[in-house]
């Protein structure tokens, strides 16, 4: 077996009294697309900052490319690309200036940095905006520029912290397409997200984090098979009657979840569960049977919805 590109063992990060990451073990193989899933405050970003070698682990060991992250920070940073949660673009400079100047920070010769800039403008579909000042770009364009910039050193590993948060659906799909292409080129991707569809689209393997710990690990499909039923029945009741109505449902399916706006019934046969609910006198305003998703796995594991 090849040496993992990223190998974290009992990784801990504390800020004073607060423990952000509480002893996690993670291995990522070259070429993999790996995701950290979790609600806000689960420790995803702190983990990402340690992997990016901008934050030293409080305890545990972190090896990347076979190097110790505690002692080889700058050498590791030279080989990775980072797309931070908040853009760090120079908003007063043009799109292409942002790119080639960033290449200079990796000590690329000026001509080489400008050559790569041209390629990356193509890749990020920003060639026509090469001379625009970054301030005037849309949110999706800025995000694409951030990704392009993170690729200027031709990284072996790309870290993306909530890459599509705040983007509209079209912009997200364009971005996913670009990330998928990178993956096909053999770039290892490690990303955090709290969007289930993003994780299902992009990740070969993922971990679910909650309160600084890893609570589940596997491929999106295997996690759904392991933690959720085949189908889910979603019932919406008249406002304020959720608790009262859901009492009628006890025993139907394998498990139920009462959310503020709807009640979920986990059952392998969703239609059957709906018939049972009607028989008991439940009168939902609407009912929907769907396949179980990562969102359901998440609800089960952490007891709350992802975007809170």
């Amino acid at each position, binding site marked *: 077996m090849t040496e993992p590109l990223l190998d974290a063992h009992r990784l801990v990060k504390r800020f004073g009294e607060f423990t952000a990451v509480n002893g996690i073990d993670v291995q990522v193989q070259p070429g993999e697309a790996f995701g950290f899933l979790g609600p806000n405050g689960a420790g995803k970003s702190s983990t990402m900052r340690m992997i*990016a070698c901008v934050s030293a682990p409080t305890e545990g060991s972190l090896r990347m490319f076979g190097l110790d992250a505690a002692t080889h920070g700058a050498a590791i940073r*030279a080989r990775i690309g980072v797309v931070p949660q908040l853009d760090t673009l120079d908003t007063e400079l043009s799109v292409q200036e942002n790119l080639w100047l960033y290449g200079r920070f990796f000590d690329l010769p000026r001509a080489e940095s400008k050559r790569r800039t041209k390629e990356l403008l193509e890749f990020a579909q920003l060639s026509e905006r090469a001379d625009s000042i970054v301030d005037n770009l849309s949110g999706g364009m800025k995000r694409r520029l951030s990704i392009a910039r993170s690729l200027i050193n031709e990284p072996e590993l790309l870290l993306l912290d909530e890459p599509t948060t705040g983007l509209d659906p079209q912009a997200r799909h364009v971005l996913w397409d670009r990330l998928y292409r990178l993956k096909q080129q053999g770039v290892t991707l490690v990303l955090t997200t709290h969007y289930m569809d993003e994780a299902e689209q992009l990740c070969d393997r993922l971990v679910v984090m909650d309160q600084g710990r890893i609570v589940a690990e596997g491929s999106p499909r295997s996690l759904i098979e392991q933690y959720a039923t085949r189908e889910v029945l979603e019932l919406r009741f008249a406002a304020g009657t959720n608790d009262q109505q859901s009492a009628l449902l006890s025993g139907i399916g394998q498990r139920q979840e009462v959310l503020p706006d709807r009640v979920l019934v986990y059952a392998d046969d969703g239609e059957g569960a709906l018939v049972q609910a009607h028989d008991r006198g439940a009168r939902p305003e609407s009912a929907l049977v769907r396949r179980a998703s990562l969102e359901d796995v998440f609800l089960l594991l952490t007891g709350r919805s992802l975007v809170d």
Partner: protein
Amino acid sequence: MSNVTPRPFTGPLRVAEWHLLLYRRFWRMNVMSSFLQPMLYLLGLGVGVGSLVDANTSSTDTLGGVSYVAYVAPGLLVTTAMALCAAESMWPVMGGLKWQRSYHGFATTPLTATDIVLGHGLWMAVRGGTAAAAVSVALALFPETRSWGLIPTVFVAALVGIAFAMPIMAFSIDAEMDGGFAALQRFFIIPLFLFGGAFYPITQLPTVVQWLAKFPPLWHGVVVARGFTTGNVDWPGTAGHLAYVCLWIAVGTVVSVRRLRRKLYP
């Protein structure tokens, strides 16, 4: 995929290169203000106040036997660099950490906190030096202030500029809000401008104020600069003053690096 192994010691140059690219958009505005302002002071004080001062022979003795314009000129050169480098180490540094967050962008490259701080210092040397050079070109136009001593004075001004830039950078890195900057300007930079020996010998001031004026690097730089432009260089004194200015640079740099490392690499 190819790899680039970072060469050592190029980091500060890369950071200075970034400053230069950003500056290209603003330089016209900047050069005008950093050149015009000292010129206005020179005309207003040198010609206006100077005609009164020079009419009094005992004043000329106090000034060391030179005209008031010649006395004030090196002070303007050094205070120009001070004011510019001080301001450029306030809002822009906070912007790098909090607003544009460019420093956080640097942090994910092989650049280190030391590179960012030294790069800032290097850039301040360039900015302070060019501003002082512009003023010295103007001074060379007037017979009374024309002197070869203006050349070393530009370097002294740049050095004083860095001596303000580095400690103020350390302050700005840890500042939570930009309100402190206005206070720093009003209660530190402007009083130094008035009481730091640029416009009259600080021996005219009460002893306590003299000691306060001698603590920051400005007065030391002004004394050295004036030695060069008036041709009365006291070499051991000059060495002592410059060493003191360098001490401010060293302390400011060390504290800045330590603070920035804590901010960028928590």
